[in-house]
């Protein structure tokens, strides 16, 4: 199908979410704002995992780098929203560059364990230097930072619109990237690294590029999460937040532009509903992971792509 259809589909989702701002009831309005910020994280993760085939178990370190890069500058130096956000994004970009240079020397299972371990080391470091980071408790982002162009970011309406803006930018960027020559090389590496290398593509540099883009978008999401919802804590750098984007992307469909949002949306509501019933809401995440690997390895959007719309990006 022609490009007009999938641009229509993706821009349609963006328009739908914008309409949501005016029609959603207060509670769902807050939830969808949160889901859009988390979907940015999932889209970042998807560039590494879904498109390039880099299964990382440590993306929480990039999310955490963004969150703490932004939060610490704000907490200790009363920085404004834009410089603080920039600090978070730069922190994530630099961390993903360093981690990529080291971890991409490995592949497959080793890559999973190395990223897991780097991420664990960062999470423990955040807890260890409690004088600077407030350790396990975390800290509230000062209200001085949570203002942008005269808007109060703790206000529900502003929060939703900023989340929507970020989500739209990253969605369109992803759609552009995966249609671009670079994105196609990512997929070529995922499908057959040896063949892509033989054709003359530099596998290491391409994967490094993919990981840095992925880590930077994840950091953007972490920084935005702290800015919009006003809190930074070490939990967000923990293992659980490395597993979440994997779960969202698997559920929605790895290697599809819409998959991460669909996965984050479904999983958020599944966990939200079950946490009303029990404290053990992560049980849902566990069951979903097992069932997905067993019965739906392509994910929801991936199934649509496989059955109905083969060239959906």
């Amino acid at each position, binding site marked *: 199908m022609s490009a007009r259809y999938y641009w229509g589909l993706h821009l349609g989702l963006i328009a739908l979410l914008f309409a949501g701002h005016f029609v959603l009831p207060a509670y769902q309005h807050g939830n969808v704002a949160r889901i859009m910020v988390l979907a940015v994280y999932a889209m970042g993760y998807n560039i590494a995992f879904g498109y390039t085939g880099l299964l990382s178990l440590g993306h929480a370190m990039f999310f955490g780098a963004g969150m703490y890069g932004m939060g610490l500058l704000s907490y200790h130096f009363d920085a404004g929203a834009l410089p603080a956000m920039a600090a978070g994004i730069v922190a994530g970009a630099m961390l993903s560059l360093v981690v990529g240079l080291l971890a991409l020397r490995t592949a497959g*299972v080793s890559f999973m364990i190395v990223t897991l371990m780097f991420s664990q080391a960062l999470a*423990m470091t955040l807890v260890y230097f409690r004088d600077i980071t407030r350790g396990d408790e975390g800290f509230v982002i000062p209200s001085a930072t949570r203002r942008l162009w005269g808007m109060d970011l703790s206000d529900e309406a502003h929060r939703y619109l900023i989340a929507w803006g970020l989500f739209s930018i990253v969605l369109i960027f992803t759609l552009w990237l995966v249609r671009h020559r670079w994105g196609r090389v990512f997929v070529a590496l995922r499908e057959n690294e040896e063949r892509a290398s033989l054709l003359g593509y530099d596998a290491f540099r391409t994967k490094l590029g993919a990981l840095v883009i992925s880590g930077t978008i994840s950091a953007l999401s972490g920084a935005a999460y702290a800015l919009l919802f006003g809190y930074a804590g070490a939990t967000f750098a923990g293992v659980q937040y490395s597993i979440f984007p*994997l779960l969202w992307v698997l559920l929605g469909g790895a290697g599809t532009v819409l998959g991460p949002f669909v996965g984050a949306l479904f999983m958020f509501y599944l966990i939200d509903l079950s946490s009303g019933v029990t404290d053990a809401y992560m049980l849902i995440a566990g069951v979903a992971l097992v069932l997905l690997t067993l019965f739906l390895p392509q994910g929801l959007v991936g199934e649509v792509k496989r059955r109905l719309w083969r060239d959906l990006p």
Partner: protein
Amino acid sequence: MDMPGTAPCVCPLPGGARAQDATDFMDFGPYLMLAMLEGAVLASVLALMASGLSLVFGVMRVVNVAHGEFYMLGAVMAWAVTSFIGGGPALAFIAAAILAPLLVGGLAALADIVILKRLNYDPERTIVATIGLLYILQQATLMSYGADARPVVPPFNHRIALPWIEWGEGGLAFYFPWGLSTTSYKLFVIGAAVVLIAALRLFMTRSRAGLIMRATQLDGDMATAFGIPVERVYAAVFGVGAGLAALAGVLIVPIQQAHYLMGGDALLLSFIVVIIGGLGSLAGTIVAAVLIGMSDGIISVFFSPTLAKILATLAVALVLVFRPQGLFGGKGR
């Protein structure tokens, strides 16, 4: 130690400082010994748990992320068995040491048949599925057992004061410094781990079942051609691996209380051990467990346990980055 000529010196600082050094040394020795004993207990439990992880990787070539939860289940089941069986702590403990590994091993074998077999043991999908299994086991424990940490009474627990040798005024002398002691149970844990690991080694090298496992490890297709039921071997190996973790959990629970989140740290440490020792190599695993357990015990006593874990984690990640082939059994995985 002062030389006779310096005795009348009125300056108190150098002499005083030297005396201070001497006292520090006197305290440091017993303190170090205490740290090493704690480290040895940790090393024993770790060796048992990590050899389970290593066995599973060696034979099946999959990384079991849920291994820490089998350890936790062992501890929780030990609590359950000891609180429902009467007849004194010793009998209850023996029952727990038999029942908990059997139940956990059976559960793991079932998980292998229901989940891992259907994934064809694809390395990456298996990791994702065992992450799911991790949360299922952990959260199911939270729902049934609760969020409390609960103790298990050790079968025996005599306090043993330990002697220390000191160069006293009348030559070498034994004495018992205050605070330098261990319990008979901790010594038993070390002994039990040594016996169990020796038994595991004998089982793998001398028994027919061990031979079949090693044959499957070397070449699964060839083993199938010789009529070895590889699928059943995999289920058994996964069960035995989990059973070893559960046994480690049973042994540690009289020292450390049973808690539904205790699997996380244990998993991280076992990963560190098997990677340093070389995944799949039992001998390497034991050496690494002693190394990591002892140094973790010693560093944690003198410095911060978190710092020890941060350094160990980073070190292991770098080992994997720079020596992957040597540590993953020769294959560039």
